[in-house]
């Protein structure tokens, strides 16, 4: 009965002209979205590589220079564009693509794609994640809203019941007929994406396992929508009512809940404004060691500690340049301050995420979106991870420069110049994003919520078939 009903439903769907047109439109949109994203991905990657190479050349060819001048001159850490951002751009567009690394200061990422766009960008972009998260659920509604109501309206239910159908088998046949086209269209998108990505130069961190995980997350999301739409169709008396109710669920789950969640999260766990953040950092900096100020109370205290440690009575007798040493200690103090304040931001983000997750109970969109961005490495967590790696590199760079300054000059020798070849000894910035397993374990709660949505909605659907 399941297979018979599946074939019958599939035939009916295929013969419905509206369905064919809608299906064709969605496939076309997907094709365009993948094509646009692939081009963007390729362009950005090329720009990224050119900029990275050029910046390194500038760094390497500074010539003879004081290391601390070079520290202020700075360099850039470029955020790699991850292959799966082709599927889900996440927050990439808004968080900036490179971080300027300089002495004394942890900068935020800059040059976001959104900043380069005109006001027209408010209309949004046609991206695969838009199709996957919003359009395919609409397709499910269009295909499935009258799955059961049409049987009542056409009068075929009477004949079916007189034939002795087993309701759950009959309903499962219909479920499968709705699931298959959705599975096909999603599989097609992911297959094309995989083939496009695997044929691009600079393969990056792309792997088929990540793509497949992303595919499974979306399939789970669609299963939930199919269950809900069919549940409504079972309960509704008329197709019109079923359509309105299904669309209401879509509006609530995909549009209203995420926006409400953002507002609630922001109101409950607000981020400090940029000015507040800068003022707090400055205040803490002023209360500690400033590497550039040899006359401050903290500098004098450091001087006494170092003299005592080395058993000498003058900083001129130290085996290194105390100016550089103080500079390094100042860097370490400032790094701690940044660490503390950025940790506060992360805590706020984490609390906001927790709140989002609790609201995921009213919308399967939320856990899906979180998982999708996480697997694509385009969520805030991935950005934080990159930002922390860039900060580690900045700290290591300052240490590298200050060490050269301290070991090769004496106290007060601000005219010291490092060799022209010295800069090449600084290792390149390299960043490895989190592995898939780590991402999935840190998103275990989202996986559980998505799983619970699937199980509960399917159970509800199956139980409701008894009322046929």
């Amino acid at each position, binding site marked *: 009965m399941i297979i018979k*009903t599946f074939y019958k439903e599939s*035939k*009916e769907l295929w013969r419905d002209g509206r369905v064919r047109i809608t299906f064709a439109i969605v496939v076309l949109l997907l094709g365009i979205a993948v094509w646009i994203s692939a081009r963007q991905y390729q362009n950005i990657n090329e720009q990224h590589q050119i900029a990275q190479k050029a910046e390194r050349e500038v760094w390497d060819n500074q010539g003879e220079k004081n290391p601390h001048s070079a520290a202020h001159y700075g360099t850039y850490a470029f955020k790699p564009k991850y292959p799966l951002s082709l599927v889900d751009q996440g927050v990439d567009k808004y968080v900036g693509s490179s971080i300027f690394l300089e002495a004394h200061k942890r900068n935020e990422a800059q040059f976001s794609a959104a900043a380069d766009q005109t006001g027209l960008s408010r209309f949004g972009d046609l991206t695969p994640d838009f199709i996957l998260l919003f359009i395919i659920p609409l397709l499910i509604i269009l295909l499935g809203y009258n799955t059961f109501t049409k049987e009542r309206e056409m009068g075929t239910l*009477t004949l079916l*019941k007189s034939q*002795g159908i087993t309701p759950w088998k009959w309903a499962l046949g219909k479920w499968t007929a709705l699931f298959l086209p959705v599975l096909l269209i999603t599989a097609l998108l992911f297959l094309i994406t995989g083939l496009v990505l695997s044929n691009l130069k600079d393969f990056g961190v792309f792997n088929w396992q990540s793509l497949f995980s992303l595919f499974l997350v979306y399939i789970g999301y669609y299963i939930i929508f199919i269950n809900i739409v069919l549940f409504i169709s079972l309960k509704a008396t008329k197709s019109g009512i079923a359509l309105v109710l299904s669309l209401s669920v879509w509006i609530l789950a995909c549009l209203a809940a995420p926006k409400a969640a953002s507002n609630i999260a922001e109101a409950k766990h607000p981020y400090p404004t940029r000015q507040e953040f800068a003022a707090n950092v400055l205040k803490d900096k002023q209360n500690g060691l400033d590497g550039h100020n040899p006359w401050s109370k903290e500098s004098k205290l450091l001087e006494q500690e170092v003299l005592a440690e080395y058993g000498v009575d003058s900083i001129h007798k130290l085996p290194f340049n105390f100016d550089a040493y103080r500079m390094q200690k100042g860097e370490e103090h400032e790094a701690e301050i940044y660490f503390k304040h950025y940790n506060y931001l992360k805590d706020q983000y984490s609390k906001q995420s927790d709140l989002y997750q609790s609201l995921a109970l009213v919308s399967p969109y939320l856990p899906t979106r979180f998982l999708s961005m996480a697997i694509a490495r385009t969520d805030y967590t991935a950005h934080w991870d990159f930002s922390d790696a860039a900060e580690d590199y900045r700290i290591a760079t300052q240490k590298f420069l200050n060490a050269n300054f301290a070991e090769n000059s004496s106290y007060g020798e601000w005219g010291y110049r490092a060799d022209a070849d010295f800069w090449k000894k600084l290792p390149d910035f390299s960043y490895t994003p989190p592995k898939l397993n780590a991402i999935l374990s840190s998103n275990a709660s989202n996986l559980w919520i998505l799983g619970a949505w699937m199980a509960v909605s399917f159970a509800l659907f199956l139980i409701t078939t008894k009322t046929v």
Partner: protein
Amino acid sequence: MISTNKLTKKFGDFTAVDNLTLSVKEGEILCLLGANGAGKSTTINMLLGFIKPTSGTAEIHGLDVAKNNLKTKEFITYIPENLMLYPSLTAVENLDYFAGIAGKELSPQMLTDFLKEAGLQEEAFQKRISTFSKGMRQKVGIALALAKDTKVLLLDEPTSGLDPKASNEFGELLQKLKNKGVAILMATHDLFRAKEVATHIGIMKDGKLRQQFVAENISLPELEKAYLDTMNYKEALS
């Protein structure tokens, strides 16, 4: 094959079927006549297990419908007043599906054979049901009964709205099924068709079976008179 014993259905204070006892054996056609609200359709719905009796029993092939709902469906084919099939599927596809969910796997040849036996023209086999008249859809219903090798055929106003030719053809098909040993219960307003096809005729009013005849023992005028008498139209005629 079909039997009811003191079958009663009440909807609140309203008694739709009242202590109905009847029986239809293999190769018999019982036509139930009666006005709207007489209880004919409610009786058929109880035989189908769509509604539960308030008291009494309805049996199909010796099985109590209320207790063996799914099992009794194996023996039944039901053709309502307006048999609705899937409009975007062809006659063959509809027959294949409905026979399939009843557990009958039929080859394409068998499907067309049954449609042919039900009197459907060959050129209609692969046409979508949306282009079919009511009479053509009823023939697909009969083909389903043939395909299922049905033991019991329940019909609710099947000839209503059919033109005389289609109605006559339908009557011939019922005779064919009767000769195969099918027990047929048909609710109808059509006295002429009832007299034509039935072996037995019952007249229902207010949920009760008021009169019952062996069809060959009563002429059409007598049947008409009995019907009108039962409906309390005697005064109007005299």
